[in-house]
């Protein structure tokens, strides 16, 4: 109770018609927790509700034992990195951190020490006097994590943090998240399956405001075992195969194409593959009503 987030029957509407979240139930415990879903699935809405920036319309949420309605207390223990992270462009890195530290109510001495520590942790010490506008995308994201950790939060909420980062920065960022997740709850919201695979032990899949799956990454992989197949086919057969199977991957080799597809029914003479998280995620969506049109498409 003290070290977890409990979400029960959560509902959120935008206006009278659009339901952004529908009866969401989740229990998030210490460590990295991934929230996976397509764009528009409701991830940011859920993140903002947890960060006390949006009102829920139904259900209950407690953050480390504090009801979400007690926003002032919740804000004390939550760090938030929004999807569109930015800071005053003309401020230097250290000035921006100091300003946000003051807003977090941290005393002068503690603030200085913490800023030094965090900038070192995110590898920005050398850039502390640079203006925010002069930082690269990756540096800005690292600064984003540093500012979210200023108040040493029990809960860290990061919303789509790796979008737009190059592979090297993405790996560096994931490692950083894993580092800080040792002693707190970190909720990573993303539509990039690789981020979850590389960092999270537990995850939830959100689609159109509803939770499709909640559990461990390993259990999710288990659901896809024996349901992912691979086959090398002639290119001319592709249109026909697209209609028959839920193709989730294709790789051209001359006149042949190596396809990867989902099926609940075992195939003879077809290679069964070890599933990865992306396969399991796609299977989950497929089982919940997504069509082959969604998976397939023209090559």
């Amino acid at each position, binding site marked *: 109770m003290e070290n977890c987030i409990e979400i029960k029957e959560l509902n959120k509407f935008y206006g009278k018609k659009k339901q952004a979240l529908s009866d969401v139930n989740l229990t998030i415990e210490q460590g990295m927790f991934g929230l996976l879903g397509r764009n528009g699935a409701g991830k940011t809405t859920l993140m903002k509700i947890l960060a006390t920036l949006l009102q829920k319309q139904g259900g209950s949420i407690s953050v480390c034992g504090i009801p979400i309605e007690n926003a002032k207390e919740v804000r004390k223990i939550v760090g*938030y990195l929004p999807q569109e992270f930015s800071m005053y*462009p003309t401020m230097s890195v250290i000035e921006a951190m100091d300003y946000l530290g003051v*807003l977090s109510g941290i005393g002068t001495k503690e603030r200085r020490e913490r800023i030094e520590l965090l900038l070192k942790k995110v590898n920005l010490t050398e850039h502390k006097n640079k203006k925010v506008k002069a930082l690269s995308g990756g540096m800005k994201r690292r600064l984003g994590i540093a500012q979210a950790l200023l108040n040493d939060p029990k809960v860290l909420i990061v919303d789509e943090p790796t979008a737009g980062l190059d592979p090297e920065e993405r790996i560096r960022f994931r490692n950083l998240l894993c580092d800080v997740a040792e002693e707190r709850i970190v909720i990573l919201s993303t539509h990039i399956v690789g981020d979850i695979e590389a960092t999270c032990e537990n995850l939830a899949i959100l689609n159109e405001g509803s939770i499709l799956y909640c559990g461990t990454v390993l259990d999710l992989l288990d659901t896809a075992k024996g349901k992912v197949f691979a086959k090398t086919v002639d290119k001319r057969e592709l249109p026909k195969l697209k209609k028959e199977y839920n193709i989730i991957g294709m790789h051209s080799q001359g006149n042949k194409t190596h396809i990867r597809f989902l099926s609940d029914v075992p195939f003879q003479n077809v290679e069964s593959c070890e599933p990865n998280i992306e396969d399991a995620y796609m299977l989950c969506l497929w089982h919940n009503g997504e069509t082959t049109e969604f998976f397939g498409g023209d090559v």
Partner: protein
Amino acid sequence: MLLVKEIKKTLFSITFVVFMTALLVMAVSQDVIDFSYDIITEPKLGEDYGIQQKEIPELIMPAAFSSLYNEFIANEYIAYPIGFYKNVKLSEADREKMAEIISVLSDVSVDDLLGYDVSSNTQDKMVITLDGSQNYAVQEDGSIIISKDDEVSEIKDNMEVTLSAEISYEEFKKCMKRADDIIGGGSNYSEDSLLRYSYVAVTYEDAVKSYQLIESADKFTGAYARFFCDYVGVILSVLPVFIAVAVCLKDRRAKMNDLIYARKTSSFRLMVSRYFAVVIAVMLPTVILAYISNSTVWGEYSGMSIDYLAPLKYTIGWLMPSVMIAAAIGMFFTELTETPIAIAIHGLWWFIDLNAGVNRLRGIHNLFELTPRHNSLRNTQIFLDEFNTLTTNRLLITGVALLFVAATVIVYEQKRRGKLGSYGKIKNYIAGMANRKSKSAS
């Protein structure tokens, strides 16, 4: 600590640099930065002491009546209802009301004044019906020259219309107020304007009395500080709204809203800090400038008792409420709409208030006056006479400013909790209005 950070943020903004430039330009261009050329000295016998407005009924009554009668005949009244010139033409009904007023003042009947049925009663009088299509000029001997359709005729006006000797000054002022109301306000017959019919030379005794009052009540420096505030107040009543709007829009421009909303600090602390940061950032250079200006005359009054705190007292007491209301309106409407509409709202108030005050340049005339004026180094007695009204006005303006700040805190907290969207209904409404206007324009 937050206040210091917010002050720093405000001081290092482009808007503040623009404000400082405007403040300096105003102070220098209006000659209130150096008073060494205008030293208040003890009057000497035989000097010219200038002229002054003085409420002398014997001067005011005939002159104002004559002006009213002439405007009545032409049915054209000069007025400045909200500071702008307006040529008022009265309807028949209002013209009759005006005739009643003139009738009370002159003992001439309303019918005679309006020219109805005069010929049937008096054979030797010529019937003259005047309307807006005729031009006229009253001659010194009482004759009137009327021109119409390029035809000029001179007639003898047998109708004597002069101010009745029976009318008391109080009754006269009541009539003038009614006349001003019929015209729509801002006419030559409003209470303030009546004084303009009565300029008299300042006597030696008056000059000495005025000097002694400046010496005892103002201790010289007060007079200079007041004059400084009169000019600088004009821009300080409006420019802070720009700074406040810029401060509030800065978060949105930098996409920092969510980052700040999620912090521990309370909405009250943040908004109040930002508000007073703007007020302090504006007042700090103003107080410094007031001291620079005031100190230019300190040497001239060495050995005399002068008030070194006068610049501080006047800038805080006189100017700060104007700064506070401008900043408060700026913050409230910007947080509410996330648009710079506050500039238009406050700018309109400032513009009307300023123009309404053009005719008088002194005193407080309504409790919600934004910019008090006292466009003179002297006239201390007038200032002292109006001091209580000024104090009430300044306290009221300060109170309203603080109410706006409280409302801003509430709005900010609602936005922070997601109860009032950043792109809420008000903003959409404003955007919708703008779209409709641009469509109709195209």
